[in-house]
């Protein structure tokens, strides 16, 4: 793609999506290959403005941390699968942002997955919910009980008691007991 064409298409996309000037400047400041790859992504998935801004920030951070170009990140197989997939554009746009978050926070995502697997493995009865802290930003484990009537409450409390060891293990995982 010719440089002028890419720039005019970027400007057209930005105008149509009312992309704030600061983000347009950041986009245009990228290397030619990076800005073209980002344009292809934005057009193909019909990214909304907010999604674009989030994706740009995540891409910049992943690229810096991994010593790779933005175009290189967008060429990763897991990203290409989304870009070239057959689902709806909004669905794929959502998947892209999620996949970029996984790439930006790989250890966090793995840890959350492990914790969720542990929680599911407890097979707690309906009415008990184990809530992890947002982004594991603290070590607080919250257990919610929703009961209608004393008998149900007692039954749920007993269930928590039966699963105390498993719940304790989850609380310890939150404190770094397992390898991350």
């Amino acid at each position: 793609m010719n440089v002028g064409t890419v720039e005019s298409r970027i400007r057209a996309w930005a105008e149509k999506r009312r992309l704030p000037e600061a983000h347009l400047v950041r986009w245009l400041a990228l290397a030619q290959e990076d800005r073209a790859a980002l344009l292809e992504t934005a057009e193909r998935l019909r990214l909304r403005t907010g999604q674009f801004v989030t994706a740009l920030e995540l891409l910049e951070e992943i690229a810096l941390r991994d010593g790779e170009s933005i175009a290189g990140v967008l060429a990763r197989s897991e990203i290409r699968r989304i870009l070239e997939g057959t689902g709806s554009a909004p669905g794929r746009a959502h998947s892209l942002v999620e996949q970029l978050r996984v790439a930006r926070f790989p250890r966090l995502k793995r840890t959350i997955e492990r914790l969720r697997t542990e929680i599911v493995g407890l097979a707690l009865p309906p009415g008990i919910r184990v809530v992890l802290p947002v982004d594991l930003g603290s070590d607080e484990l919250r257990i919610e009980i929703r009961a209608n009537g004393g008998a149900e409450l007692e039954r749920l409390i007993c269930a928590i008691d039966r699963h105390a060891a498993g719940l304790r293990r989850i609380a310890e995982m939150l404190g770094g007991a397992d390898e991350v």
Partner: protein
Amino acid sequence: MKFELDVVLIEERCRSSALAARLASAVAPEVEVRYVPDGRESARPLAGERDPFAAAKRRLVVMERRAPFLMGCPAGSAEFACCGYLVLVTASNCPMDCSYCFLQEYVADNPGLQVYANYAAAFDELERLGRSAPGRSFRVGTGELADSLAFDTLTAISRDLVEYFAQRENLLLELKTKTDEVGNLLTMDPCGRTLVSWTLSPTRVYESSEHRTAPPAARIEAARGVLEAGYKVGFHLDPLIAYPEAEHDYGELIENLFDVIPPQRISFVSMGGLRMTPALRAVARRRFPGDPMLLAGEEVLGRDGRMRSFTPLRMRLFASIRARIERRAPKMPLYLCMESASAYERVFGATPATPAALGARLVGR
């Protein structure tokens, strides 16, 4: 003195101070020395600079401090398990330029390098402190809003401080630094009342983030020098950055440290995870867009409004470093900075002591 200055600005009312005289005679001849009516104005960020914070690091302002010299540690809070550290503000800002430094936000409105000519007035405050709680010991440091030794070859403030503290039984001076500027210290006898501490990071962090600081090996070597001269020494593994190779690198750093400094002669080691407010992170990212360490620890927003590595990752790194230290130094006093009581329990398996009790333990060794 290895930090370059463009200008030294001396407040008129400090013209006849000993500090102004020392500085004016010690700066390199090419550095302009000027007198200004109000140092506070000179410390403000300069308009028109692309990076006013960086520009301010080349402008040294000798001025009077109008506020008290002694304050509680700005990192202290009821939500953290604290160490009872007190800060003596003899200077503000630092000629080094670490990408993660909180001063980028904390002194953004007055970033000029300030040195306070009336610092001897701090001794009255220290006298009152010493009398306020007989029998209690206090650890008082100058390295929170500035590096304690960065300009010491110019200012020689350390000499007056070391001499003062040498005569005070319940006060311990902590000089905290990332330099190897210990020349003045080596000529003094601290009488066991001054501790020099170094912030230590693995080479990977030093090279990526700690601009114009002394290399880690030079810091450790400087620590060996002051230890031999009769000073206590301590080390701050702070900020710990939880990048993927961190456990290995910090472990290696600890081994290197203990190979040079016998662990039983180290007063304490502190640990603190990298923490940044979103505003600080934005400034740091803008000023150091190419530093991957600012992103390497998978930092997320916590309840106190600061971004840290997500909790299990951070706790695991603390625990791993604790184990590594205790393998060679089982009795090493360790503490966490800016972490909750529950984090302390996770890492040490015990509830934290009160700030006063922890402070006394750190002062005592």
